């Protein structure tokens, strides 16, 4: 991967009171790369995403985007966050406004773009996920999978440089998981830079360029996706992957 480094994390430490959550994380994400972060519950992978987006303060270390530090005290988060799209587990569309207004809120109020131009982009994106006809519906009228796809579009419409996905299918019914993952696969194909936290192993293998395996706040293993799933180096990763393999063991 000879492309430029878009996101770089150096020696990131994060703790709540006296409990260490992230303990010296080093990570590089290149332009156009899809990085999947795996690890057991509570290992700190979601916290890592939240630190990148400034939703959690960090104790030490450095995070930079496009070569600019975004972890210093004076970081203008409302500017940085325009470049970092984030999608959450619980979708969190704004319930009091329509789908279209949800998507347009950022472009209009934060980026001060013209309504006409932003609406055109929003409608193009909605069409791509097959929900253009629901643009005037309210979030409560949509299914979980539809809401999550809209949440992705809401982040995309800000034209971010990198997208963060925090267990975006974890709250969905099984039959709705696929439609959301398909949208993300489509994004990867278009060359979007993505950092994904997920428990969907098959999806992780299909979408990832690089897999980062975290346990107890440390990166235990970091490798090419295919290599990670076929030949994990560490015992901890082998053990973790085995949990997901009960189908094969049985048959």
């Amino acid at each position, binding site marked *: 991967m000879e492309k430029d480094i878009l996101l770089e994390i150096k020696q990131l430490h994060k703790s709540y009171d006296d409990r260490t959550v992230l303990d010296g994380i080093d990570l590089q994400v290149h332009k156009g790369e899809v990085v999947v972060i795996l690890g057991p519950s509570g290992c700190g992978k979601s916290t890592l995403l939240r630190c990148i987006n400034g939703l959690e303060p960090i104790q030490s270390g450095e995070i930079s985007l496009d070569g600019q530090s975004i972890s210093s005290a004076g970081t203008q988060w409302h500017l940085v966050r325009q470049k970092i799209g*984030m999608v959450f587990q619980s979708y969190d569309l704004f319930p009091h406004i329509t789908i279209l207004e949800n998507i347009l809120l950022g472009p209009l109020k*934060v980026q001060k773009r013209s309504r006409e131009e932003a609406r055109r982009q929003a409608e193009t994106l909605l069409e791509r996920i097959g929900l253009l006809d629901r643009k005037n519906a309210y979030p409560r009228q949509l299914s979980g999978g539809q809401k999550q796809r809209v949440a992705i579009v809401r982040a995309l419409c800000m034209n971010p440089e990198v997208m963060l996905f925090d267990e975006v299918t974890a709250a969905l019914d099984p039959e709705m998981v696929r439609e959301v993952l398909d949208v993300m696969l489509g994004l990867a194909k278009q060359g979007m830079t993505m950092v994904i936290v997920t428990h969907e192993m098959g999806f992780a293998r299909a979408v990832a360029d690089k897999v980062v395996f975290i346990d107890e706040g440390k990166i235990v293993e970091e490798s090419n996706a295919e290599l990670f799933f076929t030949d994990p180096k560490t015992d901890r990763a082998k053990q973790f992957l085995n949990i997901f393999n009960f189908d094969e063991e049985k048959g």
Partner: protein
Amino acid sequence: MNFGFIVQSLPLYWKAAQLTLTISVWAIALSLLVGFLCSLAIYYRVRVLKSIVKVYIEFSRNTPSLIQLFFLYYGLTQIGLKLEAELCAVAGLTFLGGSYMAEAFRSGLEAVGKTQIESGLSIGLSRAQLVRYVIFPQAFSVSMPALEANAIFLMKETSIVSAVALPDLMFVAKDLIGMYYSTTEALTLLVLFYLLLLLPVSLLLSALERKVRYGQFGN
């Protein structure tokens, strides 16, 4: 029923109703303002101010409104502070209503989940924009029914201002009973006039509530 008495009394009631309405409007408007500011102090955990507000709320809600009014009107003269009866009435009702409105606003603000706030921040909204476009609209629609109930409650509670000699509806009714002993007629008119004042307000607020809460909630 003494219909002659009723017809003769109507202009007196009409005039008193205007006073009741005026005091109500002022008391409700100021209570909303006081309540709103108090709820912000609690929601944003403003140091010192938050504690003062909490003491005020407990004080206001756990003492009888009539006694609050007496205190303002008669009690404060001891320290050389003499308020006009009208001012006293509005101040007393605001003291009472402010705490109820504060609790109504606060419950709305607290109903807006943390994830909504993070979701707003993640699309780059500033703190002020977050409040304006995400928190307030949702909080307000949660608070609306309680605010409405408080407004109606305050209008009815204006009947205590007769105790500081303001000629409101209650005062006129008591006066007429004292002078003419037409108790049934005077009280019937009193009930009807309150109904006349409150019913339109009730209906108006219900309509407003439906409008504000449209398209709201439910995942």
